């Protein structure tokens, strides 16, 4: 589903954030992306969702190279990806409900469906009672959960999560991971960047480990 082919990324005026990365994730696979702070985890996720472009090499999703995706196609591609951003990226000028509804509205869902789906997603992260609040009036962990609800509300084919449990207590983290796992069981490809050693060791999933921009574990490409 996601395949990196000798990908490097160098930000303007910096050293390589990613160097010569190759790996493949199958449809429905569930993997952790680990590594020290600044190892390149967020950069890797940004490449998959085209927030950044690779400097070298190719990122292939569903067999198609993202380099060859025309600019006008990017929105439609992104609608099939769900992302939990490291810095939440919530909009503070609208309610929690409206924040979560955004991916559905963008794809043109009928209003009736939208309400049903949004409530289901909010229920899953335990925030159904706060749907009318403004995100500023939420705690850090609650904001993070709104971001998680938004990332899954439109049932994406690929789910990327950047440190989704950084502000959550252990029980809640486990529940969220369960949620993600259930997504992978129905065929969604899930890739989660995290520092939470407890979780990664407990769940015993595939782990892609980055160190200084290089993949030091989990790179097995079956080709």
């Amino acid at each position: 589903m996601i395949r990196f082919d000798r990908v490097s990324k160098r930000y303007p005026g910096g050293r390589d954030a990613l160097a010569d990365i190759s790996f493949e994730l199958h449809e429905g696979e569930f993997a952790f992306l680990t590594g020290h702070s600044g190892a390149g985890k967020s950069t890797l996720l940004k490449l998959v969702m085209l927030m950044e472009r690779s400097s070298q090499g190719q990122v292939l999703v569903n067999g198609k190279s993202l380099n060859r995706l025309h600019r006008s196609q990017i929105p439609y591609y992104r609608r099939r990806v769900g992302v939990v951003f490291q810095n939440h990226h919530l909009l503070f000028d609208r309610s929690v409900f409206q924040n979560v509804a955004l991916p559905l509205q963008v794809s043109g869902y009928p209003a009736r469906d939208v309400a049903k789906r949004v409530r289901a997603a909010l229920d899953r992260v335990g925030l159904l009672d706060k749907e009318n609040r403004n995100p500023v009036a939420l705690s850090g962990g609650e904001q993070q959960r709104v971001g998680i609800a938004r990332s899954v509300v439109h049932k994406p084919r690929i789910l990327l999560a950047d440190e989704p449990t950084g502000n959550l207590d252990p029980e809640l983290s486990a529940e969220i991971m369960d949620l993600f796992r259930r997504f992978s069981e129905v065929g969604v490809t899930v890739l989660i960047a995290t520092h939470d050693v407890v979780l990664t060791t407990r769940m015993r999933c595939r782990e892609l480990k980055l160190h200084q921009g290089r993949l030091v574990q989990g790179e097995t490409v079956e080709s």
Partner: protein
Amino acid sequence: MRAEPAAKAREQKSGATGSRTSLAQRFRAYLGHHRQNARDSLLRLLSAPVQSAMTLLVIAIALALPGMLYMGVINIQALSGSIDTSARMTVFLQPDADKADIDALMSRLQAGTGLASVTYISRDQALEQFRESSGFGEVLTLLDENPLPPVLILEPESIADADAGFLETLQGELETNPLVDDVVLDMRWLQRLQGLMAISQRLVLAMAAILGLGVLLVMGNTIRLAIENRREEILVVKLIGGTNGYVRRPFLYSGFWFGLLGGLLAWLMVWAGIFLIREPVAGLASLYQNPFSLIGPDLRQLSLLLAVGALLGLAGSWLAVAQLLHKIEPE
């Protein structure tokens, strides 16, 4: 947090692969999004009334100034229509010319081409007119005898430069006529008028240029700054898969509302401005026995202002969003 039954999971899977929504549904949602944006952007504008009012006033003032200029031009046109502005040739006849001969000359002139009117002014009429128009009436009452000859006033059909030749030919022709004492082609006021026109033209051009630039800049800048505050919204919607059109829509509606309401306010300002000077203008005109009264802005001006405001608002937000969209694009 709820456990998700397997059935739901299956539905989810098919949902993730299929096309999800029918075209008709999509179109309905698209229209709904338009409606919702139109409403939301208006509500957003009303929800911060002080700040919106400030922005609106700025836009209104920017629109009202050229609006006033336009009304000024219209009024000057109307005024110059009410003033006698045609070029004229004054034919001084011999004081003792026979009225029958004069009538014959007049019919000949009227039969010819190029003249709009031929008017006869007898000696008494000439004295009367002179008294009224010159301001030297008091002097004339001191005269024992009427010093003025009878006069023919010829008005050409147009005052274009090309016709100056025709007038001069006519002048030469008339001067040889035994009935005629002298022919005066009064062109000096034409020069003056042209001088005035040159100034007002440049003034209007300069004002129009500066105001046009001003309106564009003020609206563009105001909307740009208002939008920059919502930069995060653009970023997030793009990241979530919104097309550029989707991103632009709320801002276009905001710009549209700002422009439309600004145009309405501008019309009111122009109206108030005209109202304010209507009375002294009428007073002044009455001194000149001129029934002129200022023309106020009407519904045509209103629709013009609304249209220009809305268009500029749309254009301004389009540009501002395009700029931001360009900035956050990778590569």
